[in-house]
């Protein structure tokens, strides 16, 4: 998973404030959360000496762009559709105890995870325990994934 330090190391580190953030570190945090784009850093875009940094940033920030509001990313290319997350997710179990909770495919639309065409898809993300005011750092979907196809950023 991409860290804020990894992003920071690729920024100009001059704290010029041209992006309206107080420091380059604050801008790195905003990039990681997905609230800002790296193209909003004027020196990074204008100066050719940051060419390699731009390419690297584009590459490491790509997965974050696909993240849900909770920061959930499913790397479909890694997913084998095993359904461990479908059965382990506490929201799936609570909303579909006789389907997902018992190891079957989900039997209603209230679940977060379901496997379609051999790949897991996420929906109803507002139901995720990582969402909203009382959010908790639930790892129930990441932990049983054998291919590390699910991550939160």
């Amino acid at each position: 998973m991409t860290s804020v330090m990894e992003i920071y190391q690729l920024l100009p580190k001059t704290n010029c404030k041209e992006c309206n953030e107080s420091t380059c570190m604050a801008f790195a945090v905003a990039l990681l959360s997905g609230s800002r784009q790296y193209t909003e850093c004027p020196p990074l875009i204008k100066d050719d000496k940051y060419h390699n940094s731009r390419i690297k940033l584009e590459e490491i920030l790509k997965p974050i762009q696909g993240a849900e509001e909770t920061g959930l990313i499913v790397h479909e290319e890694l997913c084998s559709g095993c359904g461990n997350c479908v059965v382990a997710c506490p929201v799936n179990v609570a909303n579909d105890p006789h389907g997902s909770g018992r190891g079957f495919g989900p039997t209603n639309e209230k679940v977060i995870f379901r496997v379609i065409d051999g790949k897991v898809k996420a929906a109803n993300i507002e139901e995720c325990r990582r969402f909203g005011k009382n959010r908790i750092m639930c790892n129930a979907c990441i932990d049983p994934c054998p291919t590390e196809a699910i991550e939160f950023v």
Partner: protein
Amino acid sequence: MSDITTWICTGCALLCEDIQVYTTNGQIEKVEHACIMGKSRLTGCKHTAKPMIDHNDVTVDKAISQAANILKNAHNPVLYGWGNSTSQAQIAGIELARVLNAVIDSTSSFCQGITINEILQGQIPSCTLEEVREKADVILYWGADPMSSHPRHLSRYSYFPRGDMRQHGYEEDRKAIAIDVRQSRTAKICKDMFYRIPPGSDLEFMKALSDALDGKVPKLSFDMDIKRLLELATLLKKCEFGVIFAGLGLVYSIKEDIHILSGLISKLNELSDFSLIPMVGHFNMRGFNHNLFNETGYIHKVKFTDKGPVSGVEYSIIEQLKGNADAILVIGSDPLASLPGALSKRMEDIPLILIDPCENLTTRAADVTIPCIASGIEEGGTAYRMDGEIIELSPFIQSKGMSDEMIIQRIIKEIN
């Protein structure tokens, strides 16, 4: 679930029965709940097989006649494959072997046959996957990596689901243990309950575990903390309902010493309640063993003679290809992709008939190719799940082609 139409997946021997398939004009648009292996099997071949003789296009009737001729004129024909056929096709295949006085064998002769034989002979207790889901509190994956070979195994039955007696599921009520030579995907899920052993040392580990169960101090020639082994023995003793999923790693390592595994399971059953389920690969590989056992009393490596069926190592596909075979019929298998090169080469030297829905590596070497429709997708029937339960398959796509069972019946008719 009752108001939703669900189908059986024939991607592997788990035969998941909760699959939803959406079709438009006979084409599959979407598959829900199946893993990537199941989806791949259900959505069909990349290239469908065509009827051919010597790589020239012919009609299906001509290809069947040519296959019947080859088999009729052969002195020692071998019928091989059967893992991806329904029980009905397998029973027809056994009849064909009887008509031809042929050798009939399946992939089980170098796969899970040895464990299935012990179960059928009553030497090793087994149970159903439903029992595993409802009751099992200790699950031992030995030389098996279901996360790679049967992706839904853990989520569907063995570890993650809540069962009647395991309401808290994997979080509190179940312990998963992996014994393997490498940290497989399954071993990663087992975390600190992964026991890494050197290749080929399963018997030594088994004996050490047996000593630990007897309260003796176990000895191991390889590096492993004995305390961990004692912890494992304590866990196995205390369990209420344990299951060992035996993979090919275990089967290949113990070879003919299956009695040591039977002995360990007997000992475990004196202390608690233990069963074994073989990790069967192809969707009806176990069915072949059951059907042949019902017909002949043997599970594989069978030769039909005028005096009746006989079985022995010399009738395994491997020994036959090394020696006597002068024609081979392959059905629902791709031996050129799975058998060692020298044996594949031998297959190219003798007349080779292939019955399969898809083009594969064996098609390239086949003298006669007969396309069939896909079992469990375009044709119904029954199959044995990896735990020996009989599952009814229903077709969800209409097809005009011939099933493998019909093709075998036609060959029998032409021979007679």
